[in-house]
């Protein structure tokens, strides 16, 4: 692969007259980047500055850290954060399952296209749709339980979403069901572009299926798996609102069994009309997620190689 050095931007003696006009008409990178830069600065820059301000105020007056102590002592906030923390345990499961699915698809010739589309199907279904369909499927007398009872597993026919003891785990199961397709496609795409020679060489040396994929394939897939893991960790901490909102009618129930930080923030702002407290908890969430920035910078160090590359 050719790794080009980006063109140095400096004034050079143009090679011909056309290039002179070219330079004049396009004054370097600034114009190219400007529209996107303005939009990003407005949406992110403005918001984060305003968020910090709001979290130190109450009805426009400066109150110091009052909001923070209110939020941090709110038991519901702690519960919400704890639930996000629990959801992080789905990330390793997702990584392992995606890797296995990708390898299986890679090794299958017959029907690979069909399997691939099927495995990816959950990823393109809208979360509200998934929420509604699973909501029906998992009811006490829903399709899943009637199938379980028909097969004689009566004791497994649980009240999946109605019982606080397993509601969050049911939710995790649904999230895994949805997210595994993305990981599979991501890893499979990388797997297909790996140089075939190493795999063939290992095969000729007599490496079996497991040795081949754990000792030869896996190390080469590390960057893409790392990318997926960080991506999913961010999803679990900050992008599960949709599941919870749809499946519990915006309540995070039963009881508080599925309240997550996003729902807490949404409810503080729009149901309890306390935007300052919502801003404070949002700021705390932002600080918590900034841990993942470190992970992203590790990936960024590889940017010259390209994330999906080696």
């Amino acid at each position, binding site marked *: *692969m*050719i790794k*080009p050095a*980006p063109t140095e931007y400096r004034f050079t003696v143009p*090679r*011909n007259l*056309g290039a002179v*006009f070219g330079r004049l*008409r396009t004054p370097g*990178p*600034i*114009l*190219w*980047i400007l*529209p996107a*830069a303005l*939009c*990003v600065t407005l949406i992110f820059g403005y*918001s*984060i500055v305003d968020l910090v301000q*709001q979290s130190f105020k109450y009805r426009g007056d400066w109150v110091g850290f009052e909001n923070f102590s209110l939020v941090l002592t709110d038991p519901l906030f702690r519960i919400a954060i704890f639930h996000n923390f629990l959801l992080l345990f789905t990330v390793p499961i997702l990584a392992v399952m995606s890797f296995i699915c990708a390898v299986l*698809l890679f*090794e*299958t010739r017959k029907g690979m296209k*069909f399997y691939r*589309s099927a*495995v990816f*199907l959950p990823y*393109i279904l*809208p979360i*509200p*749709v998934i929420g*509604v*369909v699973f909501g*029906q*499927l998992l009811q006490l007398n829903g399709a899943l339980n*009637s*199938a379980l009872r028909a097969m004689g597993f009566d004791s497994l026919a649980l009240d999946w979403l109605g019982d606080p003891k397993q509601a969050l785990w049911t939710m995790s199961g649904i999230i895994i069901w949805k997210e595994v397709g993305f990981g599979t496609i991501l890893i499979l*795409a*990388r797997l297909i572009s790996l140089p075939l020679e190493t795999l063939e060489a290992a095969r000729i040396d007599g490496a079996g*299926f497991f040795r081949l994929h754990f000792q030869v394939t896996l190390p080469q897939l590390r960057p893409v798996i790392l990318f997926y893991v960080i991506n999913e960790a*961010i999803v679990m901490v*900050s992008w599960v*609102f*949709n599941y919870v*909102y*749809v499946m519990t009618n915006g309540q995070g129930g039963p009881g508080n069994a599925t309240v997550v930080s996003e729902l807490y*923030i*949404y409810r503080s702002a729009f149901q309890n009309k306390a*935007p300052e407290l919502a*801003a404070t908890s*949002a*700021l705390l969430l*932002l600080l918590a997620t*900034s841990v993942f920035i470190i992970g992203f*910078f590790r990936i*960024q160090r590889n940017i010259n190689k*390209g994330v*999906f*590359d080696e």
Partner: protein
Amino acid sequence: MNKKSTPLELAGVTARQLILILITAMAIVPGYLMITGSLKTQEEFLNSPWSLPMNPNFQGYSAAWNDQFPTWFRNSLLVTVSAVLFTIVMAATAAWGFAHWKWRGRDTVLGLLISLMVVPPVVLLIPLFTLGAKLGWISTFRMLILVYIGLMLPFSIYLLTNFFRAIPVSLIEAAEIDGASDFRTFRSVVLPLSGPPLITLTIVNLLWAWNELLLALVFLQSDEKKSLMVGITGFQSRYSLSIPTIMAGMTIATLPLFITYIFGQRYFITGLTAGSVKGE
């Protein structure tokens, strides 16, 4: 398997096939229930949720597609398509600005941009809502479109920058020697090479914007401005007595994504390996 397989290998292959079939079945089941359910009567669904619809009827669809449903559908289409279009254009030009020129502070700006991918959308919710209220832009499409563009840009720029950097510099130099302006080079050399990543990005962004709920819930509050995802969230309680109607509504809501994916699938995998030009 071109050589003769030992029984052990054969068992291995069979086991892998079985696992794949199991995984596939699990992936398909909810979609199956959704589509077959939409074609049944309420009674049929409750009695035998798993069976195929004996005499398919489309009453669920006509019941779902009335009232505000078409309006929601149009709203979602408008917001999603315009947000994704603007995002792709802005991201492609910005990525070219990052990839083609080396300027002081570039890597810092790029790093900052990448770190924005970590910011949870809910963090922006309250400041942007306050801003929207001040401008009187709550329940306007332009507000939501702007927010979506802002949120989709960091990842889009990142992906395209990665890809543009891997375009062989010889191709670009050749265009420049021929006297092409930067814009001309971008349009006639860079863009034609970037089909797969652009399509991938379009699909990923379409999926994201069409499915987004939290921001649509907050920024489009009036009934006639609701997005489809917000609309169908309330659908469940409204039609709780007619599951086929609910399932029909869900099927319609999924259809645009399904069609997009079918058309883009061919490019999707190649696009995800963006960053390496080899093999294309």
